[in-house]
């Protein structure tokens, strides 16, 4: 007999559900304020003010944006394929939020799944992340096809070609920290970094660094951000796959893009930058950075968030700095440079591991 209404229900239904709700709420909050930060930082980079009317320093701008988007008319084009048109935005946001379930935001705290700072830890964690991320391309492809518009269609095709191409170097570059850790569980990978006393970006120098660089470039391409935002290149394709979308459906595409940015940054932090660990976890005199005066785990969560936000800042910085690539340049970079380099660093790391 299973005690369903007692502790089982609490540990396997109530707690995970609460964690899922909190994780999604926090990430949506981060997304809302990333859009605001993006406009403010771009404003700073381009020597203008950015949004400054709603609230002090424009701080309530995201709320106004959401209210506006919610209130807009939802247009479905006349000859669009309705089911696909409606489904597409959900297919972009869904996978990104699913991946959050295996990201370790903070350390496990010893008392079972209830008190640890992640939703779940699966033994194929990293593979699961890569697999679910590869599902995300359907939303863009389907949205572009269903809109019955040549610009949307071309944008969708471009995004599919781009995401398939860059999934390959991304996958290979993740194999490098995987070889260093020897486990696929994301919690296990961070714990391996703690045990080895270094972030994997510094492991097997320079191959960890190389893999990190490839991962992040491929990640920027995967999330369709500058300088690889060809699927929505406004000068050629109007707005790419979401040309026909309006109101909340457009907002979902937008949300999906930012959720993908957060997921890619979170995976980079976990795999290369030590997850919830402080900088240089093996250096004794830096131990004040563990912030031991905080309740257990909270310091880890803080470190994770700091690294995550740094990544988001770099994304925005890229957008203010680089001009857009041409499509053939994009394919050249992916297939002729990133994939061979990634393969090389995988082989070198493997050899290193065997020999030493």
């Amino acid at each position, binding site marked *: 007999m299973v005690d369903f209404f007692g502790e089982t229900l609490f540990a396997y239904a109530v707690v995970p559900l609460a964690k899922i709700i909190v994780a999604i709420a926090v990430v949506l909050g981060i997304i809302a304020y990333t859009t605001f930060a993006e406009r403010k930082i771009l404003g700073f980079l381009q020597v203008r003010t950015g949004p400054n009317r709603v609230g002090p320093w424009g701080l309530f701008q995201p709320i106004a944006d959401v209210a506006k988007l919610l209130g807009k008319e939802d247009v479905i084009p006349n000859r669009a394929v309705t089911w696909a048109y409606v489904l597409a935005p959900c297919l972009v946001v869904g996978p990104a939020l699913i991946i959050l379930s295996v990201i370790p935001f903070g350390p496990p705290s010893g008392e079972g799944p209830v008190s640890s700072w992640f939703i779940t830890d699966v033994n*194929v964690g990293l593979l699961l992340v890569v697999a679910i991320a590869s599902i995300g391309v359907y939303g863009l492809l389907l949205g572009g096809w269903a809109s019955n518009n040549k610009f949307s269609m071309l944008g969708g095709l471009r995004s599919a070609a781009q995401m398939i191409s860059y999934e390959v170097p991304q996958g290979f570059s993740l194999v490098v920290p995987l070889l260093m850790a020897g486990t696929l569980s994301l919690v296990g990978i961070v714990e391996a970094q703690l045990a080895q006393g270094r972030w994997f970006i510094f492991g097997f120098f320079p191959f960890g660094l190389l893999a990190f660089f490839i991962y992040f470039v491929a990640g920027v391409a995967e999330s369709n951000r500058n300088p690889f935002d060809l699927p929505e290149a406004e000068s050629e394709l109007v707005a790419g796959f979401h040309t026909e979308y309006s109101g909340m459906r457009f907002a979902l595409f937008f949300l999906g893009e930012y959720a993908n940015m957060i997921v890619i940054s979170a995976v980079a932090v976990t795999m290369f930058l030590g997850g919830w660990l402080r900088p240089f976890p093996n250096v004794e005199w830096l131990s004040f950075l563990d912030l031991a005066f905080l309740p257990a785990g909270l310091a880890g969560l803080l470190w994770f968030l700091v690294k995550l936000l740094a990544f988001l800042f770099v994304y925005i910085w890229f957008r203010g700095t680089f001009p857009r690539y041409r499509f053939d340049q994009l394919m050249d970079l992916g297939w002729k440079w990133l994939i061979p380099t990634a393969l090389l660093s995988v082989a070198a790391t493997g050899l290193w591991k065997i020999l030493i």
Partner: protein
Amino acid sequence: MDFLLVNGPGLLFYLFAALAVLAAILVVSLRNPMYSAFALLTSFLAVAALFFLRHAEFLAVVQIFVYGGGIMVLFLFVIMLVNLHRLQEMRIYGMQWPAALLLAVMMIGLVSWVVAQVQFSPANISPEALVSVEGEAVGNVQAVAWQLYQKYLLPFEIASLFLLVAMIGAVVLARKE
């Protein structure tokens, strides 16, 4: 509630198995290739769910990654580029059903033979075999890797050689004179 908890895996098996079969039938019976492609995707994902239920996590995730994220995207890519309205009136594969029938019967025969083998020699195949190496419990990934790289290294390498040949063939075919 207890009934659900005890029989949950079994019920889920029948749910996903039915979904996989239903979607597979839809793939060949629907006239619109776009719908067929999505039925095929559903079938792949349902099979991945079946793998999860058998604790073959590695196979399940690879099924999602390779078939769901790679192959089906390429299928959709091609389907989006052809003119669907013209294609729907044509009966391209109408002539191939005898060959298809023969292949299907052979496939069913092969699968039943394997199932019979497994069914009548339970000593060889146990649920633990999927997650253990020489009796020691490890993960499914390690168990699969051990089988592939220790026990069946040569067949594995031959299979990868076949894939390489197919890839070079595709490059040669696609190259302009």
